[in-house]
């Protein structure tokens, strides 16, 4: 996967580059709009990360210009601004995504994956999910582990479904709040953790291999091996 990172802050540039390369992306870096245009013209990219505050031009103008020049790849917009520009909303509707600084790396990676998945031909929605001996029937809204049906509430099922769809990858608390409860909040309290503890109590029974792992400081991951 070839990725073009357009970001002028050296500190952010360097850690993003490292973590993106660790996740398997081939990263090219541009520190301003001019370089970004040149790089985009020279070779093709699968995905772009563009910061809105560039030294020579506005990030949105850059994206629009690149689109005019025939860029098809999806863009993840990074912004440190407070308000979301109407033009950003327009781009969001056009299939691009938007992430506010500061962000968790796990969330950035998840959004990149989503953008790439959206761009490729959407694989038919699975009706069953299977992670090790955990099985989810999405039609009957039923989960079972090792053949044993789990007594889950509706909300717990949605939470487990989200973890299963991201099995093997870290999901942060704010990603869970966003995708499972549909809100972007930053609670002062450990509300998400309590939901995870409860779910874990039902999924990881006594004597079974624990599937839901806590990644401290980051979030949670559902083990897939």
């Amino acid at each position, binding site marked *: 996967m070839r990725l073009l990172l357009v970001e002028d*802050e050296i*500190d*952010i540039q360097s*850690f*993003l580059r*490292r*973590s993106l390369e*660790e996740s398997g992306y081939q990263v090219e870096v541009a520190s301003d709009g001019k370089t970004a245009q040149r790089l985009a013209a020279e070779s093709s990219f699968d995905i772009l990360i563009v910061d809105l*505050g560039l030294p020579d031009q506005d990030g949105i103008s850059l994206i629009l210009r690149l689109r005019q020049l025939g860029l098809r790849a999806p863009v993840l917009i990074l912004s*440190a*601004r*407070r*308000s*979301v520009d109407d033009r950003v909303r327009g781009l969001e509707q056009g299939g691009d995504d938007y992430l*506010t*600084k*500061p*962000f*968790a*790396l796990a969330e950035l990676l998840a959004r990149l994956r989503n953008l790439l998945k959206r761009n490729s031909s959407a694989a038919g929605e699975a009706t069953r999910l299977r992670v090790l001996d955990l099985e989810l029937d999405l039609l009957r809204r039923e989960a079972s582990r090792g053949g044993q049906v789990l007594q889950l509430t509706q*909300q717990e099922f949605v939470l487990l479904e989200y973890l299963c769809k991201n099995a093997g990858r870290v999901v942060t608390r704010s990603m869970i*709040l966003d995708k499972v*409860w*549909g*809100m*972007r*909040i*930053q*609670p*002062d*309290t*450990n*509300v998400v953790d*309590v*939901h995870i503890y*409860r779910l874990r109590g039902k999924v990881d029974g006594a004597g079974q291999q624990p599937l839901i792992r806590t990644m*401290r*400081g*980051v979030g949670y991951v559902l083990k897939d091996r």
Partner: protein
Amino acid sequence: MSLKTDKPPMRSAAWRISLWATLAFACGTMVVFVFLQSFVAGDIQRRSDAWLSGEVEVLGDVAERTPKDALYGRVVGEVAELAAREVPNKEASETASNDSVFFLQSGVDGSLKLWVGVGNGQDHLKAIRATEIPPDHPTDVRVPGFRVPFRVACLRADDGSHIYLGLSERDELRVLRSLRLRFFLLWLLIVLLGFGIVFLTTRRMLSHVQKITEAASRIGHSDLIARVPTTKRNDEVSHLALTLNRMLDRIESSMHQLHTITDSLAHDLRSPLTAIRGKLEMSLSTITDGEQIDPIVSVIDELDRLTDFLNKSLDVAEAKADALRLTRSAVDLNELLRVMIDLYEPSMSERGLRVSLQSSGPVRILADAALLHRMVANLLDNELNHLPANRTLTIQLRGKEDTASLILEDDGPGFDSEVLLHVFERRVKGRDSSGHGLGLAFVDAVARAHGGSVAVSNREGGGARIAITLPASPEPSSHSQLLASSSSN
């Protein structure tokens, strides 16, 4: 935009102004007409009196010179008839006989000597006897059987007899009546015309003021870019519009400045936060030792709290300046609360707290859903952090016609009395609070940004009560509401 059609014209200022202006105008013109009429009436009277005095003298002269023989009656009668034809102000009467003039001569003994006129003259003589008529001064005499009085001039002949010449005032009164009628019609016409002109002019002028009021009330609720309508004319109303627009320019520019400051402040702080957080996360992925992880994890948590604090501070600052930008959409508060409670309930019951929602169904308002989520999360975080175990939180949602009210009541210790006084100020928090003291200031900020309000109190039986009122839509739904809000300022 036109004048509001639902407002009856009788209640407009234009109507009142035209009514008073017309009243003054009508009184003024009436006085002028009354004066004119009395002047004309006096003049007519003087002319007919002069004619009467002249004619009675001629007749007296003729009567004196004519020998008192058989022909005397005929000669004097002829002269009197001739005189009657020259009556001033006379209108051709329908009847051949002339009943508007009479000539009467009474003898020394007061008996009727000669009569020229309609009828036998006895009634006239009786009426004249009853009235004192000074010579050379015509006087009104009322004769039974005649509606209109006669003006009678008197002359005393040398032989002791009296000569009377009477002229009916009928024609004179008719002239005056027709004059009055014309005056009245003319007066009515110019008064109505005046009223119409004044009403239309003031209404046109005040409709500009009305338009300015409507435009000004829209501005600020929705946006600061709009301006009140201006006219090309160089009058007071257009000055008002221009002044308002200049004021809006200044407000918009300071608002813009505030946004620029908060934006750049956010940007300048968020960029390093991003770099720090990223580096910490990177180092976290390389460390496997549990003891080394702990401090990094707690720093990341602190950074997230700092970010949240930064966001809330800037939101509170902007809301205090009425400059918080909202992205409104239709929100069902009932659904929003159910989802939030669903999220918080496990943590609550974990701490031995009960939470119940009392709602009678969907309550839809136009609001910024993300801000409302953060507001309710704040309230529930507050309860979670401060309520002792085994207490109950009751949330009531009520939807009224154009407002929604959200009331949180708990049976905990309530607010400290000194906190209660400054509960919406930044950095005010309870003694045992671990938060950054922005919680209720943020709740207040969100409510204010939506045009609502928050009331905080301690319940009588103990416990805290937080009541939040939010309007259903940003625009005032009726004119009366607009008036109510402007008069309360």
